[in-house]
């Protein structure tokens, strides 16, 4: 955890920036906005003083606020945040809109549509999981030894903890690919080593370390989940 204290200031144009790093608002400088007046520095708080809370821009707090006093009591304080919040990076590193496809949305356990339908399987034909199957879903299916992977071979020492390989189902063309991961372990498709990505056909043999799988697709030319109506449970 960083020991540096970032002192957030708000410029007259509404940007928040780290005043311990920038003398004036770096965003206004980029956007060429004129300074209306001096930037308002927040009050400094002594870190060791726990009896007095740090009060910032109390009068800016909106919402359905009902108070008995004219302003918030002195023991209430807020972190300067909200939609205007910006990270402490230099302006050039301001994040662009990041894609949300890897975001997990909170869903109900009880709704049928919230469950990803299976698109294929990897069946283990050699290794500790002999005879077991692993489901594949649309998009990326990461294979590795650590628990967070889509396919976690937790007890196979020849499988990398990091992503050993990725099986991808591309739904628009209904095509499966296998891609080597960013680990030391090697990935073979039908005996040939994979460097970037290769298309997989039904019955392909995939070898990761000491583990061998047979690939069985469900979706493909003659079937896809978009072809059938979604049935409510």
């Amino acid at each position, binding site marked *: 955890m960083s020991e540096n204290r970032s002192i957030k200031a708000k410029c007259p144009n509404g940007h928040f920036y780290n005043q311990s790093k920038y003398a004036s608002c770096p965003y206004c400088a980029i956007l060429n906005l004129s300074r209306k007046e001096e930037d308002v520095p927040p009050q400094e708080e002594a870190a060791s003083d726990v009896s007095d809370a*740090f009060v910032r821009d109390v009068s800016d707090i909106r919402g359905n606020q009902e108070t008995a006093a004219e302003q918030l009591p002195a023991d209430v304080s807020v972190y300067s945040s909200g939609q205007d919040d910006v990270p402490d990076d230099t302006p050039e590193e301001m994040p662009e809109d990041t894609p949300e496809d890897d975001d997990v949305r909170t869903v109900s356990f009880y709704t049928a549509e919230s469950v990803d339908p299976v698109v294929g399987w990897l069946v283990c034909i050699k290794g500790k999981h002999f005879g077991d199957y692993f489901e594949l879903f649309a998009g990326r299916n990461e294979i590795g030894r650590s628990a967070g992977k889509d396919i976690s071979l937790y007890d196979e020492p020849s499988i990398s903890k990091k992503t050993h390989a990725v099986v991808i189902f591309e739904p628009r063309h209904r095509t499966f690919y296998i891609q080597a991961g960013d680990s030391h372990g090697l990935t073979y498709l039908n005996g040939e080593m994979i460097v970037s990505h290769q298309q997989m056909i039904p019955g392909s043999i995939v070898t990761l370390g000491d583990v061998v799988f047979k690939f069985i697709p469900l979706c493909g030319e003659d079937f896809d989940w978009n072809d059938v109506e979604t049935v409510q449970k």
Partner: protein
Amino acid sequence: MSFENCRLMLNRQNKYEFSFASVIGTRNSQEDYFGVVTSERSIVACICDGMGGLENGAEASEMSVDIFTDEISSVMDLFSYQTPEYYLSLLDKMDHDVHRIKKTDGSKAGAGSTLVSVFICDGEMKWLSVGDSTIYLVRAGKITRLNQYHNYQTLLDDKLSKGLIDKAQYLRESRKGHALTGFIGMGGISRFDTCQVPFHLERNDMIVLCSDGVTNRVSPDETMQAVSGKSASRAVDVLMDLLDENSRGKSMDNATTVIIRIK
């Protein structure tokens, strides 16, 4: 700065120090909503996280906080009145109205929200929780999650510990572990978490409420390090800075925290 996703009903009191923060992250909309109500003797805080995978998440969380704060403000100092039965009736009210939220075309939205809330009066605390937001107690360098999560992962953990599924199946099913088995708006509360007896608080205890946008990126130990021994406002600063740091280069969910320090 402004917070438009909160309801504050504050009267002067000086027994508890609190602070809060709420960020949108990289999402298109803010679906977290939070509330704080204080009286001379008591403080009540809640966070509702609208379910993004369902429709009308923001409306669900705002409605939940509005009903919650309206109801609780009338019984703020009647601590003994706040029994588990009372809390369940409060949840039923919220669930009933959120369940009936409609989309613009008039059809039922199927909206949902989590709830975490704490009720503190005269140095004692009760809590009420539905879903997968978090209530932590930080005391003397230790952190404890007080509430149980109502999600598929909890069911899986239980099944694994009882030997009803094997580890391969557990890991496979864990992919769907985030799905909620209890939430406001289900159309009948089947699961909720509360304490049967009030919890006695000590000086410098920190109560940390957060939505999963925080807990998905900041571990319990990191949270403990961030908030221990600090004022409520400083604790919120450090926690949110750490969340920011841990989210570099990644997507970030709506994230909200309310921290109460017992003076």
